C-alpha cells in the first residue's frame, strides 16, 4: 500500500449548537482518487472547508503529508500543495481566464514569479481545454467553462492533492464527458484527488475508494462496489428522495 | 511723418507722467465661508479707493498716484490664495498687497508676499503667530488675539474689584484659543482665579455639558466664545439654562447686529470689538469716524461694521506710508511703516519693529460693547474705554 497523503483524524465541526461534521476520520493514499458522497447536508463541503483551512475544526486534526495543517489559513494550506475547487464557482469576474489561472500558479506551493506563472497558466489552460478563452473575462464564461476554470486555477498551483467539489454538477452529458477526461488526465499526472460528486455513475467509475457521509458522520468506506451494495448507504440515500431518484435514473440509463 | 511719431510719443510720455497709478492687489472671498465678512472688508477698501481718487490720488511730492485695485475670488480656500497672490505679484505686477480676510488665509498669502519682498497690509487677521515667524513685509491693522480680551478683563476688574472666580470657555479653533490662552495669563496676572479654562469643538451646538461645568466651577463671570454661530448659541443656552453670571463677554458674536435676534438672551452680554461706528477717536490723519460712517452709508446704504472699517483703514495706512516715504519704493515705504505712529478713525496704529514680532499691531485697542435696553429695544452700547463710552456698564447682569 502506498503511503497516506491526507489523514483526517476525528474531525468535528460545530456551528453553535449545530454539528455539521461529527468525529470523521478518513485516510487518502498517494495517487488515488477518493470519492466523498452523501445526501445533501451530509457535511461534505464543510469537511472540505475544514481540510483546506476555511474553517478551523472544533476538535480533531488534519494531517497532510505527515504534517498537521488544521488551524492553518487556506493560503498556507495551498502553499503546502493542497488545492481545491468550489461547488459554487467563484470566478474572478473582471479578470481574464489567463489572469485567473495565473493567480493559481503564482500563489501555489511553487510561489512562482509572475512571468513563470503566466507560462504555467498558459499550459494549464491548454490542458483543460480553455485555450481559446484565455483573454475572455471570467465573468462572461458559461457555467461549464466556469467549472473548468475552477479546475484549471486549482491545477495551476501544481498541487499534490486536489479537492474537487461537484465539478460535474450542472453540466450536460457531453460537458461531463469532457470533464471526466480532464480528471483522468490529472490523475495520470500523479496528482491525488479527493472529490465530492452527486453523479453516481461518474464517481463510481472514477474512484478507487469511496467514503460516505450522512448527517455529518462517516457511514461507510470501501471500494465502489462495496459501498454501492451497503444497505446502510442505500437507506441513507432513500431518505433523500431526490438523490434516490437520481440513482434510479442512472441505473436505468 | 517722423514729426508726428515724436509728437505722439511725447504726448504719451506726458500723459503717463500726469496719470501715475499705484496698483494694490488682494484676494476676496466672494464665495465660501468667509463670503460676508470678506465682501464687507472689500467694500471698505473700495470706499477708500474712491475717496482718495476723488482727491486726485495719493500725493507724493508734486505728483499724484491714482489707486488701482486688482482682486480675485479666493473661494475662502487656502489652496487658491497662494495661486492668486503669485499671480498678482508676477503677472499683474501689483505694487502693494492687502491681505485676504482671516488669519488662516493671510498666513498662506504671507508666504508668497514674503518671497518677493512685497509689502502686505493685513486686515481681518488678528493672529499673533503670523508675526512671529520672522516676516519682514507684513503689517497688521487689527488688535492681535493676545490683546482681544485683556481690556475686557480690565473692565471687569474696574466694575467689581472683589470678584475672584472667572471661567474662560473658548471655541477650540485657532483664533479663539490664542485669545483665550492670552486672556488666561493676563487674568492671573491681574489677580483673577481662573476656575474653569476649557475649549469646545467648533461645531458644538449643545452647550449643556459646558454650562454644567461652568455652574460646577463656581465662576461668577464668563469670558470666551469664538465665532458667530457658536457664540450666539452659547449665549442663548446660558440664558435658557439659568446660569447665574455677573458678566458674560463673548468674542465676535455679540459685536454683530444680528445678535439682537436672541432677544432676552442677548441682554447684558458684552463683547470686545475692533471698532464701532459710534467711537469717538480724534484722528490726526484722514477722516473722522463720523465722516467714514456717513460716506459708507451713502455708498452702501447701511452702517459699516468693523470689517469694513478695517478695510478702509488698511488703505489709509498704506496711503499714509507712501506719503511719508515720498515714493512708492518698497524699502522707503517699509521704513515709513516701521516709523508710523498715528491715530486714525479706526484708532491708534503703531507696528512692532522687534525682529521677533515685526509688523504686529501695538497701538490699536479694542472697544467693549454691551447689549443694553433703551425703551424696551436692545441696543449695542460702547461701555469701555471710559473716554469713548456711550453708556455705563450694566453690572451685574443677573
Amino acid at each position, binding site marked *: 500500500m502506498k503511503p497516506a497523503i491526507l489523514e483526517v483524524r476525528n474531525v468535528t465541526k460545530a456551528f453553535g449548537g449545530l454539528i455539521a461534521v461529527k468525529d470523521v476520520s478518513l485516510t487518502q493514499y498517494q495517487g488515488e482518487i477518493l470519492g466523498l458522497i452523501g445526501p445533501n447536508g451530509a457535511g461534505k463541503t464543510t469537511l472540505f472547508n475544514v481540510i*483546506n483551512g*476555511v474553517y478551523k475544526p472544533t476538535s480533531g486534526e488534519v494531517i497532510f503529508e505527515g504534517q498537521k495543517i488544521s488551524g492553518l*489559513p*487556506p*493560503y498556507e494550506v*495551498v*502553499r503546502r500543495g493542497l*488545492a*481545491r475547487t*468550489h461547488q459554487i464557482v*467563484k*470566478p*474572478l*469576474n*473582471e*479578470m481574464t481566464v489567463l*489572469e485567473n489561472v*495565473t*493567480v*493559481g500558479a*503564482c*500563489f*501555489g506551493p511553487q510561489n512562482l*514569479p*509572475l512571468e513563470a506563472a503566466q507560462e504555467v497558466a498558459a499550459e494549464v489552460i491548454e490542458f483543460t481545454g480553455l485555450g481559446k478563452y484565455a483573454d475572455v473575462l471570467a465573468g462572461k464564461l458559461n457555467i461549464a467553462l466556469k467549472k473548468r476554470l475552477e479546475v484549471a*486555477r*486549482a491545477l495551476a*498551483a501544481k498541487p499534490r492533492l486536489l479537492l474537487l467539489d461537484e465539478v460535474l454538477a450542472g453540466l450536460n452529458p457531453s460537458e461531463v464527458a469532457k470533464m471526466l477526461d480532464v480528471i483522468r488526465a490529472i490523475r495520470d499526472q500523479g496528482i491525488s484527488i479527493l472529490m465530492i460528486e452527486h453523479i453516481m455513475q461518474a464517481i463510481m467509475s472514477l474512484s478507487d475508494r469511496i467514503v460516505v457521509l450522512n448527517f455529518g458522520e462517516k457511514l461507510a468506506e470501501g471500494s465502489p462496489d462495496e459501498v454501492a451494495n451497503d444497505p446502510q448507504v442505500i437507506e441513507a440515500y432513500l431518505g433523500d428522495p431526490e438523490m434516490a431518484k437520481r440513482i434510479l435514473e442512472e441505473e436505468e440509463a | 511723418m517722423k514729426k508726428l511719431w515724436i509728437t505722439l510719443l511725447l504726448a504719451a510720455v506726458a500723459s503717463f507722467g500726469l496719470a501715475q497709478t499705484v496698483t494694490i492687489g488682494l484676494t476676496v472671498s466672494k*464665495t465660501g465661508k468667509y463670503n460676508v465678512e470678506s465682501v464687507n472688508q472689500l467694500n471698505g477698501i473700495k470706499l477708500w479707493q474712491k475717496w482718495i481718487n476723488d482727491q486726485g490720488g495719493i500725493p507724493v511730492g508734486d505728483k499724484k498716484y491714482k489707486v488701482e485695485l486688482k482682486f480675485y*475670488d479666493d*473661494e475662502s480656500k*487656502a*489652496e487658491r490664495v*497662494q*495661486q*492668486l497672490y*503669485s*499671480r498678482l*505679484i*508676477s*503677472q499683474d505686477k501689483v505694487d502693494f498687497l492687502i491681505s485676504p480676510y482671516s488669519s*488662516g488665509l493671510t*498666513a*498662506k498669502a*504671507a*508666504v508668497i508676499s*514674503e*518671497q*518677493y519682498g512685497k509689502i502686505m497690509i493685513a486686515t481681518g487677521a488678528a493672529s499673533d*503667530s*503670523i508675526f*512671529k*515667524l*520672522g516676516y519682514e513685509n507684513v503689517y497688521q491693522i487689527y488688535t492681535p488675539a493676545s490683546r482681544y480680551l485683556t481690556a475686557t478683563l480690565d473692565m471687569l476688574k474696574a466694575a467689581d474689584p472683589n470678584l475672584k472666580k472667572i471661567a474662560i470657555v473658548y471655541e*477650540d479653533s*485657532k483664533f479663539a*484659543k490664542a485669545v483665550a490662552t492670552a486672556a488666561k495669563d493676563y487674568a492671573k496676572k491681574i489677580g483673577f482665579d481662573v476656575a474653569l479654562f476649557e*475649549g469646545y*469643538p*467648533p461645531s458644538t451646538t449643545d452647550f449643556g455639558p459646558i454650562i454644567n461645568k461652568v455652574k460646577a466651577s463656581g465662576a461668577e463671570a464668563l469670558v470666551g466664545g469664538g465665532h458667530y454661530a457658536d457664540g450666539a448659541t452659547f449665549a442663548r443656552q446660558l440664558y435658557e439654562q439659568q446660569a447665574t453670571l455677573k458678566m458674560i463677554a463673548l468674542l465676535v458674536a455679540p459685536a454683530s447686529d444680528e445678535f439682537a435676534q436672541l432677544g432676552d438672551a442677548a441682554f447684558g452680554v458684552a463683547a470686545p470689538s475692533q471698532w464701532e461706528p459710534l467711537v469717538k477717536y480724534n484722528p490726526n490723519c484722514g477722516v473722522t469716524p463720523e465722516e467714514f460712517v456717513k460716506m459708507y452709508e451713502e455708498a452702501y446704504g447701511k452702517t459699516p461694521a468693523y470689517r469694513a472699517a478695517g478695510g478702509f483703514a488698511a488703505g489709509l495706512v498704506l496711503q499714509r506710508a507712501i506719503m511719508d516715504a515720498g515714493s512708492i519704493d518698497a524699502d522707503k515705504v517699509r521704513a515709513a511703516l516701521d516709523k508710523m505712529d498715528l491715530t486714525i478713525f479706526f484708532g491708534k496704529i503703531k507696528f512692532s519693529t522687534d525682529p521677533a514680532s515685526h509688523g504686529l499691531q501695538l497701538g490699536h485697542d479694542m472697544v467693549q460693547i454691551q447689549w443694553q435696553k433703551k425703551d424696551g429695544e436692545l441696543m449695542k452700547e460702547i461701555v469701555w474705554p471710559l473716554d469713548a463710552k456711550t453708556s455705563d456698564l450694566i453690572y451685574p447682569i443677573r
Partner: protein
Amino acid sequence: MKLLKAPLFWLIVGVTAIFALLPLLSNNITLRETLVLSAIYIILAANLNLMIGYTGYVNFGSIVFFGLGGYLTLWLVGSHHWGLYSAVLVAGVSVSALAFLLGIGILRLRGAYFALATIGVNEAVKDFVSNFDVWGGSEGIFLPFTAYKAMGGAGKALWTVYLLIVLVMGSSLLLSLAVRRSKFGLGLFAIREDEDAAVVLGVKAPLYKTLAYSLSAFLPAIAGGLYFFKNGSVVPEEAFNLNLSIEAIVMVMLGGQGTVTGPTIGAFLYERLRGMLLTIPGLSNFHMVIAGVLLLLIILFAPGGLMGWLYRIWPRLRRVLE
C-alpha cells in the same frame, strides 16, 4: 526591466516632465500654482486607487495620511530644525508604518464596515490632533520663515517644493503601473474580485491588504509634507478635511477605478471642471450639486468611469494605457 518597454511608462515620464518643465521654462509662477493643485489631486487619487480600484476596499478617510504627513513634516522642520528632505522621508515612512499597524486592525472589516471605520479613524485623528498640544492643538503649526531661508530663500524653496511634488506625482503613477503589472498587484486584483476565492488560491489576503493600505499611505504622506511646507502652516481642519478625501473618490470613479490612467485623468478633469464651474456666474454656488449629479450618473450608468467606458468601446486601448 520589462517596465521600460511599456508605452505607458514613457507616457508617465513625459507627463511628469511636462508638469515640471512647463512652468519652469516659462518661469510662470501662476501656472505653477495652478499645476500644483492638479498634481496634489493626482497623487491623492492615484494612491487611493490602490485601495479602491486595485484591492476593492473603499477608504473614505485616505486624507488622514496626507494630513499626518503634513503635521509630521512641519513639526520636524519647525520645532526640530530638520531639513525638508529628511523630514518628508521620515514622515512618509512613519505614516506608512502607522497605516500598516492600523491596517492589521481595520482591514479585518469588509465592505461598509471598513468604509465606516475609515471615517471613524479620520475623525478620531482630527479630533485628537486638535487637542494635541505638541502639534499646537487647534492652532496648528506655523513654519518660521527661516525654514525657507535654509533652502535659499522662499522663492527658490517653493520652486524646489513644486518640483518635488511633481516628482511624487510621477512616482505615484509609476507605482500604480508597477503594482498593476506585479504579482503583488495580481494578488490585490484577486482580493478585489473575490477575497474568499483569492485566499483559497493562496493569496495571503490579510498581509496583501495591509501592505496595499500601507503603500497607499506613503506617497500621500510625503505630498502632505511638501504641500503644507509650501503653505507655511497646517491646522487640523485643512489637514484632515474629509471632503477632500471624498472628492478624491469622485476623481477615481470619474476616471475609472482600477485602471492606471483613470484616476489621473479623473483628478485632472475634476480640478478643471471645478475651476470652470466656480468661474461661471450663477453656477459657482452649485458646483457641489453638479459634482454630485456627475458622480451619481457615473455610478448608475458608467461604473467603470471614463477609462472603463473607453476600454469597452475600444478594448485595444487597455493594452496601451492600462
